[in-house]
């Protein structure tokens, strides 16, 4: 037990958690934006996957920041595609989302074989790059807490710092700018912004593009820092866990951040625990985020229903 506590409260564990949380948080923020605008994005998984591959392949030929940008664009393009089929052609957004996910699995493997010249499983033969870590070891110079600070704060991916900034930016956008008001209005009661002359479909389309771009950044982190390179289906359900984080976080950016952190902790535990506790099976630890999401969904729905019932409406 003490071993577990020592591990969990160590700086290395903290660093691991930040690493695992980053892609989840990017995707969750993307899911949050589109969900708040009234378009549930079930394709976060596929968008992240495509972004992973794009990042890996582009990074072979270009610097890492171009690769990250390419991943962002790839996600955004998929978002635009979803917007076209859902908003223009009025196809059901769940079906469109699933189509994107199915497309992503197939297309990424296909593109992988093209890029690696035949390797279907991983991109291990490709010299793909990594996103640099931010070295803050100069903090050690501070007397007393210096080394601890370094241990906790140095070495994170630059994208991890970006995602923290993004949480703030999205919060600011949603609650301090008029366009955030428009987006939230469109999602909650579209008749109102429509009556005010706001183009509801344009807002939703933008939200889908942005959600794709954010999922794209999550994919970049996954394939250029957490792992270096692409493996088929490497997202492993993170896109859906991100949706769970949106729900668990009560559809608020800071809530989503805490929820993503929670899920990041579980993922980090599943990396660390098999060494400590071989009696807790790795699969069960891996299962925890999904179970928590289901329970959170039930609890959340129950609360909503109870509130409606109290009002006499359900």
């Amino acid at each position: 037990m003490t071993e577990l506590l020592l591990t969990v409260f160590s700086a290395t564990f903290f660093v691991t958690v930040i690493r695992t949380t980053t892609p989840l948080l990017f995707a969750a923020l993307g899911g949050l934006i589109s969900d708040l605008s009234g378009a549930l994005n079930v394709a976060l998984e596929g968008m992240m996957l495509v972004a992973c591959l794009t990042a890996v392949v582009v990074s072979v030929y270009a610097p890492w920041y171009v690769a990250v940008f390419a991943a962002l664009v790839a996600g955004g393009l998929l978002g635009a595609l979803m917007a076209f089929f859902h908003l223009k052609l009025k196809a059901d957004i769940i079906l469109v989302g699933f189509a994107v996910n199915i497309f992503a699995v197939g297309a990424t493997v296909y593109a992988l074989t093209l890029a690696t010249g035949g390797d279907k499983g991983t991109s291990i033969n490709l010299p793909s790059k990594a996103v640099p870590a931010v070295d803050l070891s100069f903090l050690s110079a501070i007397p007393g807490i210096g080394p601890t600070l370094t241990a906790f704060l140095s070495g994170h991916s630059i994208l991890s710092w970006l995602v923290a900034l993004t949480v703030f930016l999205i919060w600011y956008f949603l609650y301090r700018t008029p366009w955030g008001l428009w987006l939230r209005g469109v999602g909650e009661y579209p008749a109102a912004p429509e009556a005010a002359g706001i183009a509801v479909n344009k807002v939703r389309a933008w939200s889908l593009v942005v959600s794709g771009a954010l999922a794209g950044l999550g994919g970049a982190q996954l394939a250029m820092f957490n792992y270096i390179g692409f493996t088929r289906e490497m997202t492993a359900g993170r896109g859906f866990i991100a949706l769970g984080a949106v729900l668990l976080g009560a559809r608020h950016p800071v809530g989503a951040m805490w929820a993503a952190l929670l899920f990041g902790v579980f993922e980090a535990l599943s990396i660390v625990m098999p060494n400590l506790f071989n009696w807790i099976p790795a699969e069960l630890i891996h299962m925890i985020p999904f179970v928590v999401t289901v329970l959170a969904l039930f609890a959340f729905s129950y609360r909503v229903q109870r509130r409606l019932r109290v009002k006499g409406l359900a």
Partner: protein
Amino acid sequence: MSATTSVPNPHSRWAVFRREAFRGISALVIALIVAFVVVLFTSKAPFEAMYQLLVAPLQKQRTIGLWIDDVAKLTVTGLAFSLVFQARQFSMGVQGQVYMGALAATYVAMSPLGTTWAAIPLCMVAATLAGAVYGFIPGYAKAKLGANEIVSSLMLNYIAIDIVNYLIRAQLSPPGKGLLMTDPFPKTAVFPALVANTRIDLGLIIAIVCVLAVWFALYRTSWGLKLRLVGHNPKFAEYSGIRSTFIMVSAMTVAGGLGGLLGSMFVNGQAFGKLTILFEGGLAFEGILIAIVARSRPLAVPVVALFYGYLRQGATLMGIRTDVPAEVIGVVQAVIILLVASSFTVPGKKLLARITRPAGEPPVPHKVQETQP
């Protein structure tokens, strides 16, 4: 005196069938063209690749066997999704039901009962029950809590896979060998092959029976009629005194049973005859495509499964024999889903009609109603 008119009936079974078939085939053709374009630009031997895709499955008895075996499995998952779509629910849990069903069947097969003559029926029953329970959970949560069945069923899929993986590793696989699969089931617990040396087994018969059973349930029982009415217009169902929540939950439970049965078809079938990790390979989700193209009609599901299964087999062979991987079929799938999903709605219909209408055929009358999945 009858009130029928003498105008050619645009709603007769034949006319509807022709329209649906035309729509499904157009979507398929467009998707294949897309695939061809992709292959053309990326493969060194595109025509060879397309040849393998389109012709190869028919060349050997073994590959035909694989095709038919796939068709049986695709049919059952297509039926499961058709059921939930007809009730206008979006439960995506067939994959999880397959794994839980397979697990239940495995326990029966590996128990003392597994060596008796009753093994196969007991395995099937256990699998169906397990799947039904697993389908019941998201349904009940939706009915009682209003919980979104899409998210809950998807999460349950992952949970089921993790549970099965764990049990295989920790309990079911033979100790010490480090294999990620159980020992082969006793012969009495494996479906007999219908055509020797192929994978075509009892599963095919099960699939056919399921088609007839689902069709019968939907169109010949009051439960089925209530289910369809709830799917068409929940307010009208309430006005008629139909208990919508019961129907919703029972639809998802029955569909779950189908999923569980599919699990038994996997592990008790000639293809496996044992439980291994990740045996299902994502096949359950392809049921979505089948259900959508078949417009959730049980009798159309095996036909769509036949064509789609063929494509799938062709893609696998293309993947083995040429430089184009089988996964290109994912692109084909996605295009078909997008096209067919768009074709349900007016702007989508207009766009599609402009692209696909053959010269001379009049446009589909605006008032014709279709069943929505």
